[in-house]
C-alpha cells in the first residue's frame, strides 16, 4: 500500500506528523511518501491512498481517522484528488509537481518532467535563453512585475569577471506562502530555474536568501542542494555540459525590509539590511558590486516549465500584458484557504467567494487586502476587478505576490490602518526619513483620529503623500496604500468615534 502525506509546514502545523505516526503504527508495511502540499490547506493534513494508480484523498485528518482510512469507511473520503473541483479548475504549471512528488527525490522530479527545461537550455546560447524568457512574457512574481527577460538581458550584456543569481526567498508579506510551498514541495524546480538563469546570463554562482521564519523550507532546500551537487546537477559540469553553476542557501535574520532587493543584497553581504539608492541597478552593481539577477522564488521556479513546454505555450495563458499563470494565495478569514494556480484574468470576487467559499466565520466579507501588508484594502464593490497587473493598477490596487487576506465585517479598518503604520515603524530600515519618522507619526496621527480629532485626517493624507513620494523603497512608499484605502473605502470606521466624542 502506498500512502502520501504532505511534509509541507502548513500540513505539519495542522498535525501531519501525528497522522503519519498513527499510520505507521497501524500499517507498518505501508510505504508512506512525504510530499509537498496540494494547496488545499483547509483539507490538511490531506492523506492520499493510492488505489490502482489513482490517489484518493482523505481530509482534514487527525490520528483518529486512520482506522477508517485504512478500512475504507472514513467519512473524510474525498475521492480521487485530481478530480476535486479545486484541482481540476487550476492550470498548474509552476506547481505541477508540488504535492505530487517526493520533494527530495531527483528521480521523482525527473519522472514528472523535471530537468527537461534545463537540458533544453543547456543546448542554447545565453542570448537564446534570455530571448525565450522574454517571449514567455514572464514578469517578476515577487510583486513589482518587472519583465524578467529584460532584467536577464541587462545582466547578460554586462561585462564582469563574476556575475550572480540571487533568489529572493524572503517571503515576508502576510498572505504569501507560494515561495515556501514550492521550496518545500519541489525544491529542484527552483534549483533548475536558477541554473538556467545562471547559464543564460553567464553567472556561475547563486544564492537563495531564505527567511529564518521558514525552518522547514531551509531544511528541504539545503538538502536538495546537497543532492543536486552529488547528482551533478550543480557544480563545475552541470549535467555533463561543461558549464558551471553552483549555489548556496543563506538564512535571513528576521528583517522584513530584506525582501526589498537592495536591502537583501546588503544583508547577503553581511551588512545591515538598509536599502540602497537606485541607480546603480543590481543588474549592473548587485551582490559585492557585481552584475546580479535578483528574482523571486516563483519567477525562477517558473523558468523550467517555460523551457520544458516552450515560451509560447506559457505566454498563451493570461490577460493583456499579464502572461502565464498567477499563483493565488488565499488566506485569512476564508472558508477554503490555500494555493490556486490559474491563468491571469479571474476576478477578485470569484477568488474570494467562489474559490475561497467566503469567510471562515460565515459573516459578510468587509475587505480583501491584496498584495501583502503594503497592498490596498479592496472593498466588495471592487470584486469585479480581474487579476492582472494593469487591471489592478487601474482599480487602485496591486497584485504584488498575489496573496489575498480576507477580512469579515467585524474588522476595524482604523485598527488595520494603524497596524500598517506600526509595522512600517517596526520594520523600517531607517535609511530615509519619510519612512523612519513618517511611520511613527502615522501611528500617532491615527490615534488622534481614533480619539475624535477631525483635524488629523487631512494630516494623515498629507503624511501619506510625503511617504509615497519621498521614500526610497516600497516599505515607506507603499504603506500609505493600506492606510489610505482604509480611509477612503471605510470612512465610517474613521468617523464613528468622532461622532461619539461630539
Amino acid at each position, binding site marked *: 500500500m502506498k500512502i502520501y502525506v504532505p511534509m509541507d509546514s502548513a500540513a*505539519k502545523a495542522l498535525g501531519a506528523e501525528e497522522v503519519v505516526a498513527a499510520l505507521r503504527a497501524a500499517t507498518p508495511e505501508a510505504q508512506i511518501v512525504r510530499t509537498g502540499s496540494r494547496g488545499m490547506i483547509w483539507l490538511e493534513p490531506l492523506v492520499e491512498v493510492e488505489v490502482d494508480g489513482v490517489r484518493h484523498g482523505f481530509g482534514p485528518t487527525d490520528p483518529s481517522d486512520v482506522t477508517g482510512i485504512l478500512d475504507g469507511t472514513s467519512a473524510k473520503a474525498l475521492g480521487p484528488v485530481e478530480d476535486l473541483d479545486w484541482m481540476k479548475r487550476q492550470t498548474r504549471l509552476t506547481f505541477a509537481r508540488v504535492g505530487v512528488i517526493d520533494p527530495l527525490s531527483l528521480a521523482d522530479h525527473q519522472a514528472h518532467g523535471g530537468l527537461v527545461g534545463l537540458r533544453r537550455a543547456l543546448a542554447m546560447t545565453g542570448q537564446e535563453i534570455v530571448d525565450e524568457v522574454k517571449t514567455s512574457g514572464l514578469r517578476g512574481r515577487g510583486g513589482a512585475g518587472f519583465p524578467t527577460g529584460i532584467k536577464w538581458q541587462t545582466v547578460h550584456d554586462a561585462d564582469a569577471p563574476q556575475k550572480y543569481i540571487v533568489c529572493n526567498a524572503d517571503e515576508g508579506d*502576510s*498572505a504569501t506562502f507560494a515561495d515556501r510551498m514550492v521550496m518545500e514541495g519541489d525544491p529542484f524546480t527552483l534549483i533548475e530555474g536558477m541554473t538556467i538563469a545562471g547559464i543564460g546570463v553567464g553567472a556561475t554562482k547563486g544564492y537563495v536568501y531564505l527567511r529564518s521564519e521558514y525552518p522547514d523550507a531551509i531544511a528541504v532546500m539545503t538538502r536538495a542542494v546537497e543532492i543536486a551537487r552529488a547528482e551533478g546537477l550543480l557544480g563545475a559540469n552541470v549535467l555533463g555540459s561543461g558549464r558551471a553553476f553552483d549555489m548556496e542557501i543563506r538564512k535571513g535574520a528576521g528583517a522584513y525590509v530584506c525582501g526589498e532587493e537592495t536591502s537583501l543584497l546588503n544583508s547577503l553581504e553581511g551588512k545591515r539590511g538598509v536599502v540602497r539608492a537606485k541607480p546603480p541597478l543590481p543588474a549592473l552593481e548587485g551582490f559585492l558590486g557585481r552584475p546580479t539577477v535578483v528574482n523571486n522564488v516563483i519567477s525562477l521556479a517558473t523558468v523550467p516549465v517555460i523551457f520544458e513546454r516552450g515560451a509560447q505555450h506559457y505566454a498563451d495563458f493570461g490577460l493583456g500584458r499579464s502572461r502565464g499563470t498567477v499563483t493565488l*494565495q488565499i488566506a485569512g478569514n476564508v472558508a477554503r484557504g490555500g494555493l490556486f494556480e490559474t491563468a491571469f484574468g479571474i476576478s477578485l470576487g470569484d477568488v474570494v467567494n467562489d474559490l475561497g467559499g467566503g469567510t471562515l466565520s460565515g459573516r459578510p466579507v468587509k475587505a480583501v487586502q491584496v498584495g501583502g501588508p503594503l497592498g490596498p484594502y479592496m472593498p466588495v464593490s471592487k470584486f469585479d476587478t480581474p487579476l492582472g497587473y494593469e487591471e489592478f493598477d487601474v482599480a487602485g490596487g496591486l497584485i504584488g505576490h498575489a496573496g489575498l487576506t480576507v477580512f469579515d465585517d467585524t474588522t476595524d479598518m482604523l485598527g488595520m490602518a494603524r497596524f500598517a503604520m506600526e509595522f512600517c515603524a517596526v520594520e523600517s*530600515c531607517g535609511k530615509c526619513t519619510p519612512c523612519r519618522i513618517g511611520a511613527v507619526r502615522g501611528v500617532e496621527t491615527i490615534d488622534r483620529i481614533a480619539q475624535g480629532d477631525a483635524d488629523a485626517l487631512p494630516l494623515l493624507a498629507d503624511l501619506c503623500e510625503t511617504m509615497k513620494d519621498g521614500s526610497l523603497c516600497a516599505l515607506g512608499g507603499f504603506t500609505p496604500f493600506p492606510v489610505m484605502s482604509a480611509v477612503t473605502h471605510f470612512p465610517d470606521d474613521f468617523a464613528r468615534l468622532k461622532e461619539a466624542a461630539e
Partner: protein
Amino acid sequence: MAQPATVIDVEEITRIIDAHARLEGPLLPMLHALQEAFGYVPAQAHAPICDRLNITRAELHGVITFYHDFREKPAGRHVLKICRAEACQSVGGAAMADALLAKLGLNWHGTTANGAVTIEPVYCLGLCACAPAAMVDDRVVGRVDAAKLDKLLAEAGA
C-alpha cells in the same frame, strides 16, 4: 534550541569564525552559527569577528542590532513566536496574543519567571491559510487558539 552556555568557550568562538570566514558575505552565517552554539551572540566573539573580517565594532554592533533574530543575551529555554501579521489578525490572532501576554504578565520579548519560555512577535510564518499561527523553537503550529497555546506552554515548561 541550544541551551545558553554559562561559560563561553573561546576556542569554540574561534572555530566558528574560522569555519565561516571564507564565505562571500560571511557575517550573517557566522552570527547564526554563534547563536546556534551559545543561544546568543556572546560579547567575547565581537573582537575576534571584527579582527577577522576587518570591520569596526560599530559596524558589527549595527548588524547585530539591526536584525530581530540576533540576541545579545540568552532567551528562555524555548522561544514561542506568535504571528502578529494581517492574516492572523483576520481570525482573532491579536486578541489571542494579548490575552496570553496578560495571563503571563509579560510584554512581547518577555521571558517567564522560571526561564522556560520567551514570547516573541513574528511577522508571518507563511501559515496564512491556517491562521492564527505560532512557532515553538522550530516547530510550526496552525489554527492556534487559547487551548492550544496553553498546551504548548505546558509542554515548554512555562
